[in-house]
């Protein structure tokens, strides 16, 4: 929003010493962010007033002429094409170095062989009008050599205020509102708005009444209108145009400009209809698919939840957003109906959003306007109309369909409580003054309790509870003027977040022990991505308004992201390794409630840990299993062994053979596998890829519940290690044999596989598993003989169970 300092001066006396920068800073620190200060004169830098001394023919061009222009300190030769150029004229001259509002930079140049040092400007080139018929000829008062800005009296400074920081302050969307705020900030007297209204304007109830019907009083709580005749539509007077241009509005004609002027001044959007085109007024819902051509000459298709102003039959305007072209002001208009209404914020907002049509009017209504404004605005409009259209005659009774309940809002405000909330005492007088300056009325005060009446312009949405008053006092007093004091409290033991601690530990192990890099992938996946990985996506949660087709669903696994990481980086190194912690999302009901009340729950979400290795090596699967086992031992104790067992349902992305579930302490926590060749081909990967995905939520549970890793007493007697290799059919599982070995005899304390052999020394379909078998007694030193007995029994049992042969 643009605010003109000159305009503010209509309402408050800004001391000469008060710089614009200080005003901007004060507003920023106490009210709303001022994003920029624009000095009007800056846009006319390097443009001065010159006098045409000579006009000569251009030797090489019929339409161009050579002018000699006096700018006081020198005489310039300028090539000019304007037909109205004449000796003696006072003209605006853009000197070399000037940048015109349209972006044109003036340079020393040669035009058809003749040197030109500057440019004599037309009105449109200076951004002060539309005229391009010829150069702008200034009146006799212009002084040669003087800056053009000075001639224009372009001494205004414009504050650019961030609209977002006004989202809860509909009262500040106007010059008067900002003036009121500055009054409170600088302790300046604000001119009452009534003073700006001509009290002599007479309303006559005897005049014909406008027929106004409001269907939905909630959507349109107040509608004021009046008919005025004797209107002459023409260009606005200079003062009106200048003000509009200063705040970035384009002048159109005197009537439209005046509605805009009043809106920018007091904050109430207005609309003027051509009275000849409007028989009566009905504020109603649009018909389904009703079409209206708006003032911007676009056809708008409306629906039942849009609010329109109609003449009983056809829509004339979209309420609070934009008028229709048909009933708009034209040069033929001689009588008008002026509307100042209050529309519900939500309705305007919804329609404006749906149509993609945001206007100065809709941005104001969206923020909930004070219904009292309609009256002020209408009277102010008529006051000003009289000055620019002296022949105007009020031709109807004043219509005011008002269903707003004027209930003044009172808040009980305890100054001791204020001190408690701020943590510092604000002097009573200061607090009261701040509230009064902002327009709050103190209706009653006892020792420390104030009864505060909220002014109508703050009551529409903004100030409703005592906490809101704390903010008012505090922000004007200044957040930066409050002393800092840390809270004093009793010591208490904060609850540990185990998940976070374990996550951090795992991250450190993965990064600094196995040299993996941590990635953060998106929570979203797409059809193509999942299809290539042969992952079924019908059960995935979908985004209703996704940004692109690569992000249409919520991930159920970290695998797609990790595979993508390999794809992105495969050319960067021979071997790659990444890991990720991230949430995954399922349609199944979860354990968190949707609302405080009720039984509905959020979809199920859990955290996963994913690991990926890629290289052109054969042992990737074994390496990743090793990483997983070692990681789990780091977390659960070095005596715990990870079991990799056969999976019944193989994930679509996995290789059919090299895939296993990860089981620890009897609990399944994830899967480890090689990426299938099909997936590798689909994605065009150049390396083999091993992936593990662990359910972190389950793992954390397991870690929290698992008992501490108890120390085992060191053996008192020496143990005996026998190395035995068994040849078995390749389909006999390591897990089965291991279980058998461990459970075979209490003397066998530990077994460890140290070699797997498959090759020409064995028959086809056979493998040899070689084991260190550790025999240990807690009571005695074992003899070779007793170990031999156990071994020979073991060999027999393995032979009968697995057809295992001892390999010599």
């Amino acid at each position: 929003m643009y605010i003109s300092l000159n305009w503010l001066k209509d309402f408050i006396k800004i001391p000469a010493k008060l710089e614009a920068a200080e005003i901007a800073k004060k507003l920023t620190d106490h009210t709303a962010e001022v994003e920029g200060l624009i000095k009007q004169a800056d846009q006319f830098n390097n443009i001065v007033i010159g006098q045409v001394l000579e006009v000569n023919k251009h030797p090489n061009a019929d339409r161009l002429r050579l002018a000699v222009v006096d700018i006081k300190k020198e005489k310039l030769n300028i090539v000019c094409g304007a037909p109205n150029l004449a000796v003696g004229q006072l003209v605006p001259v853009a000197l070399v170095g000037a940048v015109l509002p349209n972006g044109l930079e003036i340079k020393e140049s040669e035009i058809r062989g003749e040197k030109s040092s500057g440019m004599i400007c037309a009105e449109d080139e200076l951004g002060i009008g539309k005229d391009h018929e010829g150069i702008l000829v200034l009146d006799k008062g212009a002084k040669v050599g003087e800056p053009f800005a000075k001639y224009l009296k372009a001494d205004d400074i414009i504050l650019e205020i961030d609209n977002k920081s006004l989202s809860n302050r509909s009262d500040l969307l106007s010059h008067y509102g900002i003036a009121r705020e500055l009054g409170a900030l600088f302790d300046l007297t604000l001119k009452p708005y009534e003073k700006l209204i001509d009290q002599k304007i007479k309303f006559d109830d005897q005049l014909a009444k406008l027929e106004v019907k409001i269907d939905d009083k909630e959507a349109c709580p107040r509608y004021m209108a009046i008919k005025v005749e004797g209107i002459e539509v023409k260009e606005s007077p200079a003062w009106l145009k200048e003000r509009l241009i200063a705040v970035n509005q384009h002048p159109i004609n005197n009537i439209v400009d005046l509605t805009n002027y009043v809106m920018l001044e007091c904050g109430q959007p207005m609309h003027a209809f051509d009275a000849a085109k409007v028989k009566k007024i009905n504020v109603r819902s649009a018909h389904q698919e009703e079409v209206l051509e708006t003032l911007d000459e676009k056809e708008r298709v409306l629906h039942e939840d849009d609010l329109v102003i109609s003449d009983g039959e056809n829509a004339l305007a979209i309420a609070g957003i934009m008028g229709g072209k048909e009933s708009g002001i034209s040069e033929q208009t001689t009588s008008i109906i002026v509307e100042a209404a209050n529309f519900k914020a939500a309705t305007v907002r919804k329609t404006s959003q749906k149509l993609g049509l945001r206007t100065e009017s809709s941005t104001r209504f969206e923020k909930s306007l004070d219904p009292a404004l309609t009256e002020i605005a209408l009277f102010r409009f008529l006051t000003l109309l009289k000055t620019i259209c002296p022949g105007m005659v009020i031709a109807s009774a004043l219509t005011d369909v008002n269903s707003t309940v004027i209930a003044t809002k009172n808040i009980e405000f305890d100054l001791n409580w204020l001190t408690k909330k701020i943590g510092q005492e604000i002097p009573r007088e200061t607090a009261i003054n701040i509230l009064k300056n902002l327009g709050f009325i103190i209706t009653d005060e006892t020792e420390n309790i104030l009864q505060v009446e909220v002014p109508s312009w703050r009551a529409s949405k903004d100030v409703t509870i005592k906490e809101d008053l704390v903010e008012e006092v505090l922000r004007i007093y200044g957040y930066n003027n409050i002393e800092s004091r840390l809270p004093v409290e009793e010591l208490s033991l904060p609850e540990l977040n185990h998940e976070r601690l374990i996550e951090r530990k795992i991250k450190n192990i993965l990064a600094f022990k196995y040299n993996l890099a941590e990635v953060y992938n998106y929570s979203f996946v797409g059809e193509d991505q999942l299809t290539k990985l042969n992952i079924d996506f019908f059960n995935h949660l979908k985004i209703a308004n996704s940004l692109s087709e690569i992000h249409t669903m919520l991930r159920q696994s970290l695998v797609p992201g990790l595979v993508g990481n390999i794809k992105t980086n495969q050319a960067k190194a021979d071997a790659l390794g990444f890991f990720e912690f991230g949430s995954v999302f399922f349609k199944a009901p979860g354990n968190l409630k949707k609302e405080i009340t009720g039984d509905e729950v959020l979809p199920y979400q859990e955290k996963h840990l994913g690991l990926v290795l890629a290289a052109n090596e054969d042992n990737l699967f074994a390496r990743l299993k090793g990483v997983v086992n070692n990681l789990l031992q780091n977390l659960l104790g070095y005596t715990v062994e990870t079991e990799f067992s056969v999976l019944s349902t193989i994930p679509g992305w996995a290789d059919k053979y090299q895939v296993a579930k990860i089981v620890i302490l009897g609990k399944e926590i994830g899967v480890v596998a090689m990426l299938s060749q099909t997936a590798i081909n689909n994605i065009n990967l150049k390396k083999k890829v091993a992936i593990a995905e662990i359910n972190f939520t389950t793992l954390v549970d397991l870690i929290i519940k698992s008992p501490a890793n108890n120390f085992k007493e060191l053996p008192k007697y020496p143990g005996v290690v026998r190395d035995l290799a068994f040849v078995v059919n390749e389909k006999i599982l390591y897990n089965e044999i291991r279980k058998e070995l461990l459970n075979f005899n209490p003397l066998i304390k530990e077994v460890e596989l140290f070699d797997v052999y498959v090759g020409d020394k064995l028959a086809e379909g056979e493998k040899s598993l070689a084991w260190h078998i550790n025999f240990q007694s807690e009571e005695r030193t074992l003899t070779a003989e007793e170990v031999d007995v156990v071994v020979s029994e073991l060999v027999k049992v393995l032979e009968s169970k697995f057809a295992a042969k001892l390999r010599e």
Partner: protein
Amino acid sequence: MKNKIEQIKKEFLDQLAKLKNIEDLRALELKYLSRKGELSEIMHGLKDLSLELKKELGELANKAKIEMQTKFTEARRVIESYGKKDDFVDVTLPGEKIANGHLNPLTLVQNDLEDLFTSLGFIIGDGPELESDYYNFTALNVPPLHPARDMQDTFYIDSKNKNGEYDLVMRTQTSSVQIRMLQKYGAPLKVIIPGRCFRNEATDARHEHTFYQCEGIVIGKDINFSNLKSLLEIVGKRLFGPDTELRMRPKFYPFVEPGNNGEYTCFLCNGKGCRVCKQTGWLEIVGAGLIHPDVLRAGGIDPEVYSGFAFGFGLTRLAMLKYGINDIRLFNSGDLKFLEQF
């Protein structure tokens, strides 16, 4: 004879100067300096001379021998030193290459924040990334049709409730966890909730639909604005250095009242003004305020007994500032060349 001695010496020294290896050196030693060398022969020959001559030439021969010996030793030292290559070490060579892994910079910054706040006695909280419209908006005083709910700002899940409305969102802010924390822990409470958030916006170097925030809540019987200010000050000093100052301005958030933003002295230019702080000397880092009584009530806490404040940091923004990262998309890019720098 005299000349002979000089000549031998000259010959010896000339040859010595040309020598390059230890073998030639030994041969030279044998020829001139050994017991049967040329000099010894001369000295042998002296015995037949007159006493005076013997003395004179003897002295001369001895002097020559000492000089030759000295030069020879020097030459040997030089030749031996470059002869023995294994003794020389190029200490400037690099050490053995040790591979390393990498933590994402977001993790590093989150760890810093968690350490800072746990040292102040805060709990680290968690909440769901897929959240209900209720916890993300309604319960935080953002009613339906509020600007903050724009479809273009929020990812909605394609599943409708009984009233036919989308009621599940990808949380747009970690503030969505505020009420869950109040319900879970009650008062008094000190908790931070770092985590992933989502905004439905097109990505470019400065915009990302997936980013991280860190929310903080403090609830107590006497918690006030002065406490909030003080806490934000010490956080700034810890994050950006002991001379960091805090500047607060009013800012509207529906779930706090009063609400403010917080700017810290730009740590890149020490407040002098630079490109990153847009020449202001300040960086906007935090949004905060006293928790709105509606939010406390929704969390089951009586606002007449307890009060509290909440604050939120843009964790991704902190990481960008800390490491000077100029493209927000890098965090989620999985690009090894990026990750390798952390």
